[in-house]
């Protein structure tokens, strides 16, 4: 079921009608409609056979916090009964150990399922024990990475006493399975999402027009940009040979830049919009990442919820752990800045190693993760040097020109990263990087594209993509300057709005037809 399809629209319509109808009768059970819709969606879109994995994950992450809460109560009782302070301390320490054991067991269970389904086969293949990365025939459940991370955050937060754990399994299951997030995130936090799912909503307070506008904007990015480019990118990078011209590589990577952003952020826009129709606002996942001024900034704007997850559950805990503090103390003898930043840099490398693995177990993903980690770590370690250089050169770091320069530089750095992300063979990634610098060969550009099967019509039709990109760029630029673009559009005269919507719809219709149906170049087949 595509998000842009009659079946999804009907699914939404039925779910919304049921939701608000039940809300009128009894808002206390309104959430049950959301749960029913989520489970139905999971079976419709994913494979129902894999539902058991999600149920298992939900069961573990529901039971563990409850067990922790019970242990807290027992700990309190025993401490109250303890004769002296030393005994109270001993009781506390003993229960702390047990609590940690429960946490570790829950995490192992969740990540164990994820690792087994997502990595085990690839690992066997890489060490030569499996015929192919999919030879075990394991079914990867829809959204497993997302719901696993989301549920784990719930367990850890509960462990840290952030909130009372949810006692009702079905309510917890709704948090794990909420259908708009299950396809591609965002990774929500219980404290933000949980209450919204469970409280009653009435149709009145829902910003329908804004939601629809956002849904359309997402569809434009996904269909008019991402889907239009994916075929060409594939043709370019599945034919990497030693003499691939750098100009073709750069073209492919730039297309990937647009495709990746259009696909991911467009899809997120669509599910965020769907969720908000139920009065449930999910966490934001993108904030115009290509306007970042540094790679670290980029990762605060791209896949935001993965970044904050990593920050809260990997980066901080690891960076303030005892060994890292000791490392910082030792490094500070070499310099105060080094002492302060070294633990952060090491933690950061770990984070990006995991981010790389999150995308897949293949070596090129690991290389991509480490590239990001190393660049950010170096930028931080060398920050004082950069500051001194800027001061010496009298660079006005507050000026608009400097900002534009930083944005351009970051875009470049991000794109170099895409070499490792998109080119599925690590050796090929390096080869493409080399050819970008040493064999640009612009005169071979069109010849090469023709050779790998990119048709003239593919290039010609990219004009639609260019129009969509220009539109997204302008909207993003306005949003960067704090303009409420949606609000402006919704205030337009209704005829103008109708024409504007027609134009956007037209672009989506044409590109959707092109990408799904005109594969053989039969755009004008005259049936």
């Amino acid at each position, binding site marked *: *079921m*595509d998000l*842009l*399809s*009659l*079946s*999804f*629209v009907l699914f939404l319509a039925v779910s919304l009608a049921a939701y608000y109808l039940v809300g009128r009768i009894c808002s206390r059970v309104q959430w049950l409609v959301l749960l029913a819709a989520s489970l139905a969606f999971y079976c419709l879109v994913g494979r129902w056979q894999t539902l058991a994995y999600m149920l298992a994950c939900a069961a573990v992450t529901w039971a563990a916090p409850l067990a922790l809460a019970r242990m807290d109560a027992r700990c309190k009782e025993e401490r109250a009964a303890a004769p002296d302070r030393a005994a109270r301390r001993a009781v506390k320490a003993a229960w702390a150990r047990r609590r940690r054991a429960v946490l570790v067991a829950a995490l192992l269970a969740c990540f164990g399922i994820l690792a087994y389904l997502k990595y085990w086969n690839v690992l066997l293949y890489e060490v030569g024990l499996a015929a192919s990365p999919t030879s075990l025939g394991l079914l990867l459940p829809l959204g497993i990475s997302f719901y696993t991370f989301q549920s784990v955050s719930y367990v850890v937060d509960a462990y840290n006493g952030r909130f009372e754990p949810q006692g009702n399994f079905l309510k917890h299951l709704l948090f794990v399975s909420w259908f708009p997030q299950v396809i591609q995130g965002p990774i929500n936090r219980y404290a933000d999402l949980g209450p919204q799912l469970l409280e009653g909503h009435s149709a009145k307070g829902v910003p329908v027009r804004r939601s629809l506008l956002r849904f359309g904007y997402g569809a434009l990015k996904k*269909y008019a940009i991402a889907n239009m480019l994916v075929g060409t990118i594939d043709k370019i990078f599945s034919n990497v040979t030693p003499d691939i011209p750098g100009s073709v590589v750069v073209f492919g990577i730039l297309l990937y830049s647009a495709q990746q952003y259009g696909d991911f952020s467009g899809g997120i826009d669509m599910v965020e919009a769907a969720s908000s129709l139920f009065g449930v606002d999910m966490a934001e996942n993108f904030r115009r990442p290509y306007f970042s001024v540094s790679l670290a900034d980029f990762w605060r704007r791209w896949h935001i919820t993965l970044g904050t997850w990593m920050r809260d559950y990997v980066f901080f805990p690891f960076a303030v752990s005892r060994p890292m503090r000791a490392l910082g103390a030792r490094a500070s003898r070499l310099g105060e800045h080094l002492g302060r930043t070294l633990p952060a840099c090491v933690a950061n490398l770990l984070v990006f190693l995991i981010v790389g693995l999150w995308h897949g177990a293949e070596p090129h993903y690991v290389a991509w993760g480490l590239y990001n980690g190393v660049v950010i770590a170096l930028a931080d370690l060398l920050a004082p040097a950069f500051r001194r250089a800027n001061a010496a050169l009298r660079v006005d770091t507050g000026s608009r020109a400097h900002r534009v320069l930083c944005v351009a530089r970051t875009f470049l750095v991000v794109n170099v990263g895409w070499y490792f992300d998109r080119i599925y063979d690590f050796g090929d990634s390096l080869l493409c990087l080399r050819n970008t610098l040493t064999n640009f060969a612009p005169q071979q550009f069109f010849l090469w594209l023709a050779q790998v099967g990119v048709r003239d019509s593919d290039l010609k039709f990219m004009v639609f993509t260019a129009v969509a990109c220009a539109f997204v760029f302008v909207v993003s630029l306005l949003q960067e300057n704090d303009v409420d673009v949606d609000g402006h559009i919704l205030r337009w005269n*209704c*005829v103008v*709005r*109708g*024409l504007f*919507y*027609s134009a956007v*719809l*037209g672009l*989506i*219709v*044409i590109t*959707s*037809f092109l990408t*799904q*149906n*005109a594969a*053989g170049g*039969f755009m*004008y*087949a*005259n*049936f």
Partner: protein
Amino acid sequence: METLVVLAVIVAVDALCSFALEQYGSLSSVMWSEYRAAAGESIDTVVVGSSTAQRAFDPAVLDATLGTTTFSMATPAQPLDDSYTAAKQAIEDHHVRRVILGVDYESLSNENWAGSHVAFARAKMDGESLSQAVADYWKLLVSPAFFGRADSLCALFPWGYNHVKLDPGSVVANVRERLSGDSTLEAAAVVNGGWTYYGNGYGNYDNVIDYSLARKDTSVAIHGLDDFKETCLDQVASIARLCREHGVQLVVVVTPRPAFNVLVYGEKYPEQMALLQQVTEQEGATFVDANLLHAETYSPQDADFGDGEHLNRDGATRFSQAFAGVLQALDAGQDVGTLSYSYDNWDQYLASIHQISAVVSRLDVDGGGSATVTAQTYTGTDVQVEYRFLLVDKDGGTTVLQDWSSSDSCDVPRGSHGTVMVCARQVGSASDYERYCVQELPH
């Protein structure tokens, strides 16, 4: 209120775009308008299927031999579920006795084109009552090929699917044609240059295939090579069931092509087609692969084909005559399976080809820059082929790179420009070539 205005504007723009951009005079609309025009006449046989069926069966030729009244409901890229719709309509309207379903490999291996679906449904809607039209279109939107995909929403903007070229000239011409008062039939003749309508839903072209372009002309080069889709086989089965339930005879016919376009599939062809034959016969229908008919029943001539997949008008006439004979045999209770080679004995079919159907070539350039042209012929197993390679420069002057020999590859001297002409003939022949192709050299 505001929302209504916005919606009204969107609908108005949609209608306007459909008027201007949607192809006027599509072949689907010709078929449906002619079919409706024949409402009062008796029709006892219909042909359904895609363009290969549309251009293989001439109803007049069939009827002259068989005394039947045949109408062709085949349309370009007609998906099998639309063939079902057409057959069902004809059974309801005319109680036809026989349905001929013409297919080729791609009818069963390719995803349906949403564009032809939409064009077919729109053409069918044209002469229907509003409620029937809405019901038909709704059925399209919720059909399995559309429902879960963007097409199910985008097809609310049908101009996106079967539109004219998006340049001002084509759009103006389309609008002018629509306003001119021409019927869809007249418009179709204008739009499809070289196409002639012969009546009973049948129209065809007169162009003749250029065998030297076979490399680009094979279906595999155009569509890729996939296995048959389960859903497509199911659709054939459901057409067969529809016919059986109504006591209608169904004949599933794999339409004729030049031999090279059968051989290009290799072992896939007998393997996959056997599946189709099995499904067809299981459901009680008759199966005929025209490509496998013995030479005494049907043997196409070189000039019978318009391209690698379609017959031209003369070819269709000849094939229809031969096929009428097959139907006569069928009517006489004969087992038509005996008229053709079988997929189980593929070698017999391969040995039955006594001609070079086509020669194609490929160019390999190694790291050092030296180029080799390699030829491949599509022919029978018993045919002995020899090759000659000529260098053709820009002015048309030729030099022999390698004279007649059994070697199928030839090194091109460094610094050569122009093209290499690859000639193939059977050993013992004295002709300049039986087939040839042209290999472009890199600049």
